[in-house]
């Protein structure tokens, strides 16, 4: 029987510690991991909990991230509650197995501390790894600070393991900005947290010898499409369960989460759409601009996958101009978040003017002033009635101003 961990009402935790505590409280059966910066402390802390008797489950050090996720797939198929952590290159090495996990409908929890992808080698935070996972069939939740990293990791188990969902879930947080910044965190006590997450319910587990099953069957052109269609529907339909779990969490803690978070949006004329720590920076900027009479607001997808197409549209359809911020090198295209937000807004009568900003790559700082400048450009677009700048711009990069594509609308 695992020892109880004594926790204060308020703890000073960084995002990594917060995530590792949530994994411990969920009483995971198997954690198989290969530590990598900046998510190393999640695995390291968890290893300490195991060594100190706070965990009943198994802790497996794998020989690579590919091996770590493979061990997680095996353990989950065997019928256990399973979790791990990774970042960046490790995430990239896991990708092949991420698709296996979601295709086999195994509710594994992956805490991802977002970091840039090489080359050039970089350990700092951006969203390249999060974007790399966006077609992998996992639910992707995004935490903007340490408290949220803790809360959402607990919620992730309850969402993924729900019999109506049975899908793996990633909980993202920004490398260093969240993972290594100590903040006040209000944890639940061990019993309350475990009661919220609930006892693991196996489904078609391989260790049930009275009912042997095959995992990972081959399907060709006559079966594959139907299985992928079913998987996509499960992911889209998980929205209702995510809402339910967030509602239950709110009743327990008073902390409210939504698949799309809205700040100062009731009367907003211009809005920033962003992910991660940039959301809080943008809120500070919006508050300052409101003192100058600019009706600025912020919209943030808490749930990156399944993409909240309808809620994003509802949140933004009454604005005049929207700036969508992508913290991942778009490499020959518009930013992914820009594309998805634009597609949602294209179906509204108003069709706000949407621009794209690439920013913060490799941990480049994104300050309040950067957000203010973006809001002001959006305001200029709103006033002009058309996009006055290139549609895609780079914010915070040295050298001559970098922008691509002009509008054909209204100019």
């Amino acid at each position: 029987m695992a020892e109880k961990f004594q926790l204060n009402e308020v703890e000073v935790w960084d995002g990594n510690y917060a995530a590792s505590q949530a994994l411990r409280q969920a009483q995971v059966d198997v954690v198989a991991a290969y530590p990598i910066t900046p998510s190393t402390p999640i695995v390291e802390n968890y290893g300490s909990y195991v060594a100190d008797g706070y965990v009943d489950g198994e802790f497996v050090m794998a020989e690579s991230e590919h091996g770590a996720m493979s061990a997680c797939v095996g353990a989950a198929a065997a019928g256990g509650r399973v979790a791990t952590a990774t970042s960046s290159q490790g995430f990239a090495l896991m990708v092949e197995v991420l698709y296996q996990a979601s295709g086999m409908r195994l509710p594994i929890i992956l805490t991802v501390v977002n970091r840039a992808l090489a080359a050039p080698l970089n350990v700092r935070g951006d969203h390249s790894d999060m974007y790399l996972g966006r077609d992998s069939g996992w639910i992707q939740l995004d935490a903007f600070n340490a408290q949220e990293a803790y809360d959402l990791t607990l919620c992730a188990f309850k969402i993924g393991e729900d019999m109506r969902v049975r899908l793996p879930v990633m909980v993202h947080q920004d490398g260093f900005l969240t993972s290594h910044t100590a903040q006040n965190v209000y944890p639940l006590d061990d019993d309350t947290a475990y009661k919220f997450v609930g006892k693991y319910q196996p489904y078609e587990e391989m260790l049930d010898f009275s009912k042997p099953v095959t995992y990972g069957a081959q399907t060709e052109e006559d079966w594959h499409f139907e299985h992928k269609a079913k998987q996509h529907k499960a992911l889209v339909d998980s929205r209702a369960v995510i809402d339910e779990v967030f509602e239950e969490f709110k009743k327990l803690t008073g902390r409210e989460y939504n698949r799309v978070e809205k700040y100062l949006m009731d009367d907003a004329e211009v809005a920033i759409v962003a992910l991660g720590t940039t959301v809080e920076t943008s809120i500070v900027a919006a508050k300052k601009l409101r003192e100058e009479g600019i009706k600025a607001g912020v919209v943030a997808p808490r749930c990156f996958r399944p993409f909240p197409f309808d809620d994003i549209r509802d949140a933004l359809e009454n604005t005049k101009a929207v700036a969508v911020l992508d913290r991942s090198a778009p490499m020959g295209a518009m930013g992914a978040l820009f594309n998805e937000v634009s597609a949602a807004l294209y179906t509204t009568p108003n069709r706000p003017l949407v621009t794209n900003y690439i920013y913060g790559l490799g941990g480049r700082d994104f300050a309040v002033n950067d957000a203010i400048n973006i809001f002001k450009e959006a305001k200029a677009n709103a006033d002009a009635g058309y996009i006055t700048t290139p549609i895609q711009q780079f914010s915070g990069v040295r050298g001559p101003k970098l922008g691509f594509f002009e509008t054909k609308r209204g100019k």
Partner: protein
Amino acid sequence: MKGVLATEKRGIRELGAEEKVGWDEVPQGVILESFEEVLKENVAHIRPEERPYSDFNSYTATVASWRVIKPVYNRDICIDCQNCWVWCPDTSIISRDKQMLGIDYDHCKGCGVCVEVCPTNPKSLLMFAEAEEIEDALAKWPEKKKKSK
């Protein structure tokens, strides 16, 4: 050609000839159940011909259509050493109580490993064309090879 110790369901369907169902009916996560009912004892203690194999189990499928040469078994020479049973990669050698009984032609792919490992002289298993009748094959069986001095 039904083999020994086969249930009625062994090899009754060609691979890929399953009834096609829509996305709403395929099993979640492509998790395929091997048996039609929950087993009451360890499957290793249930004889193959008594197992309730499901349509998802390869036991009920045949791959014989793509075999071009087949092993033929000669009971008169076999010494029941079980070498072929041990080495067959597709559990297609049927043996019971350490006595060789025959070949599962629904699952044998004609690889020839059983012939290779057969220690008798002449061999108790030989490869013949798929179309060759078993009786004709047995009639053509070679004589014992004499040691050359």
